[in-house]
């Protein structure tokens, strides 16, 4: 490869959630890796959710708590025999507390190639404004 500056990705095993809440379905639950960044106008959340389809993803927002839940269908058929298993699959689950500055009606979600991009615009009052000083 030509670009020698790029570092190599380190393996990061999936983080299992210890116990988010009492589960009704058996199975493992993982915390997805996220990036969260903020600009003056909005907050953006990127989450790695490999194997989750749009139908299987639930984004729930109530009382300032944002909950991401992603179901993953089993990858292998029943008649396959394991040779090497390095990762498990299971549900993804993560909760975030949002502040009041988020305009909860304008949240936008987009799932491509297993990455969720959630755009959370700030309400008008929270955006910084330049104040003219009158002389």
């Amino acid at each position: 490869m030509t670009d020698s500056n790029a570092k190599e990705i380190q393996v990061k095993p999936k983080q299992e959630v210890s116990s988010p809440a009492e589960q009704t379905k058996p199975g493992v639950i993982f915390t997805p890796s996220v990036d969260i960044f903020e600009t003056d106008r909005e907050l953006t959340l990127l989450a790695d959710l490999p194997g989750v389809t749009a139908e299987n993803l639930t984004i729930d927002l109530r009382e300032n708590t944002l909950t991401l839940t992603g179901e993953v269908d089993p990858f292998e058929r029943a008649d396959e025999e394991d040779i090497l298993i390095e990762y498990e699959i299971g549900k993804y689950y993560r909760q975030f507390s949002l502040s009041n500055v988020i305009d909860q009606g304008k949240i936008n979600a987009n799932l491509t190639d297993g990455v969720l991009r959630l755009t959370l615009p700030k309400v008008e009052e929270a955006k910084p404004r330049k104040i003219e000083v009158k002389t």
Partner: protein
Amino acid sequence: MIYRRIFDFPTRGFRSSFRELDRLQRQMEQWQGALSGGALPMPSAGVFPLTNVTEDNDNYYLRAELPGIKSDELDIQVTAKGMSISGERKIPVEGNNVKYHRREREAGKFSRLVNLPDDIDVDKVDAKLENGVLTMTIPKAEKTKPRQITVQ
């Protein structure tokens, strides 16, 4: 480019019908590792991407989680007994005036070699990348497929 050779093939232990048992066993090993000091995760080659390999009578199946990677950013080479998966995961820069609160997703290059226990049919390997999961269907070579023998 340097490929890291990863493993000699693990022995095939439990049958897949005991998958739950398998999981339990792996978890036990994990806990054991955690107790003895080094928090050992699942047994793995320690090379990105983590890979699951399974087989049935006709094919091997290789699966890896590669969220956010486009199919043209992935380079897959197949040899008679294995394959290499390499590429680069890019996370675009999000403007200048952004303030990061959390940064857990990683970008970078990766390359991984996976050896399969038996010969494969190189021409018929199929790979697809869906929802950030790579699934490769690798047909076994004719001579390595199990054969049913009829008793006369």
